[in-house]
């Protein structure tokens, strides 16, 4: 299969539909990417990457800086659409649905696939409104009581409830960095996503805040399919079940985390893990 941006449109209609029931029935993988390419203008950033990501587990993307981890991650919620000149080719399906299908609204996709960014970016609004905003725009809550409940349960899932229960009206930007990042996770959880994408969620946090967020990722795994980009191999080893190693826009190796770190098959992977490239 040689999917270029031009050939993607007809593909999505003809090939993905028949294959969809199979992947749901087997229920092995929730997200599947086939021959994904990404171009920034004339520059290609991702080269024919295919990957199957299992549900309710944590998958880590590792690789040297500039190898395209963030770019590839942004394909899953089509955040690349918002970047001027960025073109994505190939097939990406979630639960068998082609995410580029014209009948699928990108807004709906982003409600299903939440994203946590590298730098905590709470809205400059109250903690309460930060959480309530997503559910409100998606029409998930009707009454004030429902909203209150959802805010509380989301904050509890993100392990932030105890710290902020008494100041829900305070601005979200007034929290510490670690708290802000957990607020962003709670905000993502509140819209009830199936998948959560995290792009280096701990890189702006100190070790203690990092370990709190890592514990949180552990707990969230039971409910959500999580993809996490990380620069820290220790973190990948601690939180993920599967690990994908990227280099220069290509997927070099993908497998069980333990296998990747203990017994890498590819020379480049080994070189990166042992600190020889990166």
């Amino acid at each position, binding site marked *: 299969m040689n999917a270029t941006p031009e050939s993607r449109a007809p593909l999505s209609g003809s090939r993905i539909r028949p294959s969809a029931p199979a992947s749901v029935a087997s229920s092995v993988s929730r997200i599947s990417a086939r021959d994904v390419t990404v171009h920034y203008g004339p520059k290609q950033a991702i080269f024919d990457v295919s990957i199957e990501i299992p549900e309710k587990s944590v998958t880590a993307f590792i690789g040297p800086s500039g190898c395209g981890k963030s770019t590839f991650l942004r394909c899953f919620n089509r955040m690349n659409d918002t970047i001027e000149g960025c073109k994505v080719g190939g097939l990406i399906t979630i639960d068998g649905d082609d995410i580029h299908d014209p009948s699928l609204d990108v807004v709906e996709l*982003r409600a299903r696939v*939440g994203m946590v960014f590298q*730098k905590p*970016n709470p809205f*400059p609004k109250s903690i309460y409104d930060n959480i309530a905003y*997503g559910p409100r*725009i998606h029409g998930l809550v009707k009454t004030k009581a429902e909203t209150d409940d959802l805010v509380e349960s989301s904050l509890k899932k993100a392990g932030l409830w105890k710290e902020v229960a008494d100041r829900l009206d305070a601005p979200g930007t007034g929290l510490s960095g670690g708290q802000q990042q957990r607020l962003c996770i709670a905000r993502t959880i509140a*819209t009830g996503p199936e998948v959560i994408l995290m792009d280096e969620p701990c890189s702006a946090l100190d070790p203690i805040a990092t370990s709190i967020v890592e514990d949180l990722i552990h707990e969230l795994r039971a409910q959500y399919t999580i993809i996490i980009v990380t620069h820290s191999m220790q973190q990948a080893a601690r939180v993920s079940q599967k690990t994908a190693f990227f280099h220069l826009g290509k997927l070099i190796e993908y497998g069980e985390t333990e296998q990747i770190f203990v017994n890498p098959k590819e020379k480049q992977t080994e070189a990166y893990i042992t600190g020889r490239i990166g």
Partner: protein
Amino acid sequence: MTEILETEAAANDRRRAQVRKSLARRNGAETRFKLLGLASVLAAMAFVAVLFGNILMKGVPAFWQYNLDAEVFFDPAVINVPERPVQQPGQSAADFQAEMLAWQRRLALVNWNRLITASVQGAGAGVEIDDRSAVSVIDSGARFVLRDMVAADPALIGQTRTVRLLLSADGDNWAKGKLSRDLPDSRQQLSRPARDTIDALIASGAVHRSFAWHIFTNVDSRASPASAGLAGAFMGSFYMMLVVILLAVPVGVASALYLEEFAPKNRITDLIEVNINNLAAVPSIVFGLLGAAVFINIFHLPLSAPLVGGLVLTLMTLPTIIIATRSALRAVPPSLRQAALGIGASKMQMVFHHVLPVTFPGILTASIIGVAQALGETAPLLLIGMNAFVANIPATPLDQSAALPVQVYLWQGNENRNFFEERTFAAIIVLLGLMILLNALAIWLRTRLERKA
């Protein structure tokens, strides 16, 4: 061993000496730069101080004018009019109206100057003063003051009242000492008896200064310059600002939002962007020409109307507001947009729920500054006929009207320099006061909104 240590110590010393030397140079440069900056700030402040000091010194005296507290005898021999008509039972409203008008016309024909002459002559100056000189002391608008008093209360006829009569422009000049006392009679504006009367009445306290409220309540006047005011120009400017605020702000902000957030980035939008930037640099008089050509010649809107002025100023202000709003939008950190989009907000929701609220203070400030600029703009208004002499307070934006900056221009060109120089500066003070008010509003709103955000 010791030798090595010594050379090392020497090297260290040398290095430190070098650093110290360069430090002195750097500190010197910094000090000089600071002094230069301070000097520029002081120079700028001095300019502003001189400008404002000059304006205030010249303009403030205009707000106090000389009046004569005159004993006016409403002489029935002079006010020779029948009784004011009363509506008879059975008389139609139209008939009564016609009768009333006829009576008022009779009243207008009365020689009110005779009352004024008599009261000036009887003011106790102890100076022999002829009728013409006596009339020249008092503002010619005083006639209408007396007429209106009688129209309102005909019972005054036959009585004596103390009435505060404004001195004429020449009288005011003389009283304020703006006219040289050494000039020969032939070159004086006022006759000798008139001048002597004023001097004597100032000494007796009958002629004195009081605050000239009529500057704010009267319209411009050629016949009686002493009572000329800014009310018409003020309302004209007010209507124009209304048009600018109602048109330029929403249209400008909406264009900026569309161009910055929604429009595809291609040749056409690039072209539009370049054109908007160029438009901001177009001299304002060109907008006036455009306004005259489009609004007056094609759409046949009336000349001298604040609506047309407002439309022209709107065109002029639009680029300013668009550019300022766009730069405010660009300053929004991308992380905020990502946060909104990442959670599944549509583009419109991202813009209106997140981007616009944080840019609101900036947009507001830009708008108010744009409006303040428009308020002071003169040149384009001259081309749409707003420099015409209009002695009316416009009731609607379609009536003929003056405007504050144009009023400054007109008064500045008035041939009675002695009197109108002061008046011009008074108008400038009012204009600047309004601008300072608008800018203060911008600052106040911004700090308030920023604190809330």
